């Protein structure tokens, strides 16, 4: 864990990017249009009329709740020490989410915000959540220290921060106030909060290159972020380091963690990035589907079929009625292309 501030991380990223020869100097580019850059202009998920959106809170199990509104699912852990929030939807949702959190937690402060990744439908409310809360601090850190003023601690994998720095000055930029205040490196970061072990599990190169799943060990709830969703095929954001192989690794990792009760039901509960509350049985069904589709496309690639031929063969067509899309920001065609590219480039093995 690097207890570093955003600004020093940003500086470090700039230096490291410069050192590796990637000319992505965010200062020089300023507000110029992002042309020919790594940050692909992926259309974000459609933003609804936020004024019409109601927040629905559901107790999942133990100390953990799921909040739905607009954007990714929000996971809230509540206890004596305060509140831990995983993901914060879009900025205009923040006040409604906070109102719901107040109903669950009274005036207990938000201590931690965890970003499962950096997409705008998951980090938009970071600033509002952070400022409404307060970190536990003391010793050398006083109120006039930035750590005292920042509010709650916002944690993400370091690759989330790197991507935000890279995107500065582009239309996809994340306002700096929504950046994490701390990042972790490597594959895992452990917290103990509200009498519960909380594990941040990094899944490399899956939905993005900065994915974190959050496992509440005592409540027995896993919040997955967008490596697992129930409302469509997995969104593989290749421009931000996602891959089909990483998605499959993540889905299989979920199955390693989850332990069902009797008859393959219940036990460890799973909060997906988008969609309904699940358990292992639901993830098995989804993992099987994605594996079968990957295997089909791999067989087509092995036969020498190009992308157009693979698309024409409609290798997802028995699942499209449930998971496919012909419009919106992530279509079936885009999913097939991402799987095709992953298999072709050797990033589809999922081993």
């Amino acid at each position, binding site marked *: 864990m690097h207890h570093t501030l955003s600004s020093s991380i940003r500086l470090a990223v700039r230096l490291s990017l410069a050192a590796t020869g990637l000319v992505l100097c965010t200062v020089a580019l300023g507000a110029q249009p992002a042309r020919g850059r790594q940050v692909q202009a992926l259309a974000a998920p459609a933003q609804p009329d936020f004024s019409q959106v109601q927040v629905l809170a559901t107790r999942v199990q133990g100390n953990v709740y799921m909040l739905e509104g607009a954007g990714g699912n929000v996971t809230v852990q509540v206890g004596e020490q305060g509140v831990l929030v995983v993901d914060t939807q879009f900025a205009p949702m923040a006040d409604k989410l906070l109102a719901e959190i107040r109903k669950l937690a009274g005036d207990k402060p938000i201590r931690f915000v965890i970003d499962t990744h950096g997409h705008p439908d998951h980090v938009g409310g970071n600033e509002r959540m952070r400022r409404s809360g307060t970190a536990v601090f003391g010793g050398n850190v006083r109120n006039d220290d930035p750590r005292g003023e920042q509010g709650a601690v916002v944690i993400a994998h370091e690759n989330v921060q790197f991507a935000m720095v890279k995107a500065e000055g582009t239309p996809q930029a994340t306002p700096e106030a929504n950046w994490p205040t701390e990042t972790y490196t490597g594959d895992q970061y452990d917290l103990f909060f509200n009498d519960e072990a909380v594990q941040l599990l990094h899944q490399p190169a899956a939905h993005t290159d900065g994915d974190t799943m959050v496992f509440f060990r005592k409540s027995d709830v896993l919040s997955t972020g967008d490596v697992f969703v129930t409302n469509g095929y997995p969104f593989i954001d290749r421009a931000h380091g996602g891959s089909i192989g990483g998605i499959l690794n993540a889905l299989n990792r979920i199955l390693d963690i989850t332990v069902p009760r009797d008859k393959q039901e219940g036990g460890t509960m799973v909060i997906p990035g988008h969609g309904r509350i699940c358990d292992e049985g639901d993830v098995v*069904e989804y993992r099987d589907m994605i594996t079968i589709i990957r295997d089909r496309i791999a067989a087509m690639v092995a036969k020498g079929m190009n992308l157009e031929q693979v698309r024409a063969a409609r290798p997802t067509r028995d699942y499209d009625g449930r998971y496919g899309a012909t419009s919106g920001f992530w279509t079936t065609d885009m999913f097939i292309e991402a799987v095709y590219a992953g298999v072709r480039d050797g990033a589809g093995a999922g081993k």
Partner: protein
Amino acid sequence: MAIKLGLSRNLGGSAFAGLLLGLLFNGPTQAQVTQLGYWLPIYHEDFDERVPGPSAGDYAGLPINEALRLRGDTWDPSLLTVPEHQCKPHPSTYGFRGIGTTRIWETRDPETQQLIKIETHIEWEAQHRVIWMDGRPHPPASAPHTWQGFSTGKLEGDVLVAYTTHLKAGWIRRNGLALSDQATMTDRFYRHGNLMTHVYVIEDPVYLSEPLVRTNGFQLVANGTMAPYPCRPAVEIPRPKGEVPHHDFGDTAASQEFAKQYNLPLEAVRGGANTALPEFMKQFRPAAAPAGQR
């Protein structure tokens, strides 16, 4: 002592009067559930499919769409050896077709005697279903889905009618014909004497072109028992992590084998709503009598 006796006599008298009043005025509102007890399935219908098990590739008579046909073709029975698949019970959309004793019981509020729920339990893989009879709504879309789903019910006369949502992705036949987690079911339990007919209607916007309607028969047993059904998965076949057994895309070998075995045209076993109709058979000239093969 004498006072106490007198008091208890008085109470006894008023309780008796209350009971009479209850019989007179409350009786009709407390509809009796006639389906309670232990039942054994009878297999006069569809024995081959239900007890030995269906043939792979046999989709005849089912209102499946092209997507479900492909799911069936892709399905490899080895999938059931994968540890996460071993202890799956039948979903409520299939379980009443299966094997094992079925118990049906009710729970009433002890004070008001209002009917709260009716539960069913099928021995094989301990399929335990709750049918809420107290008028509660179905949960929101984001609530968990289960193998038995979320059922609410009512009594129409003495017929128990249940409506089920929040089902896990399940199946309609044990040969890979899947059901999506968007499916819903309406089922009815009719008792006639010591027999019961279960009629179920499944709708699935993803995999069925028309509602699937089937019936199952049961016989009442006087002194039924229910054994537990423990299940713990184990590695039966070592596999690389994440491997999912399945047949190749577009592989129709199972249907072809089944059609050949029973001397049927291939299209007769590929399913679809039209294959459930008597008119469908008329388009085929009688080939060599298939009955002898059974």
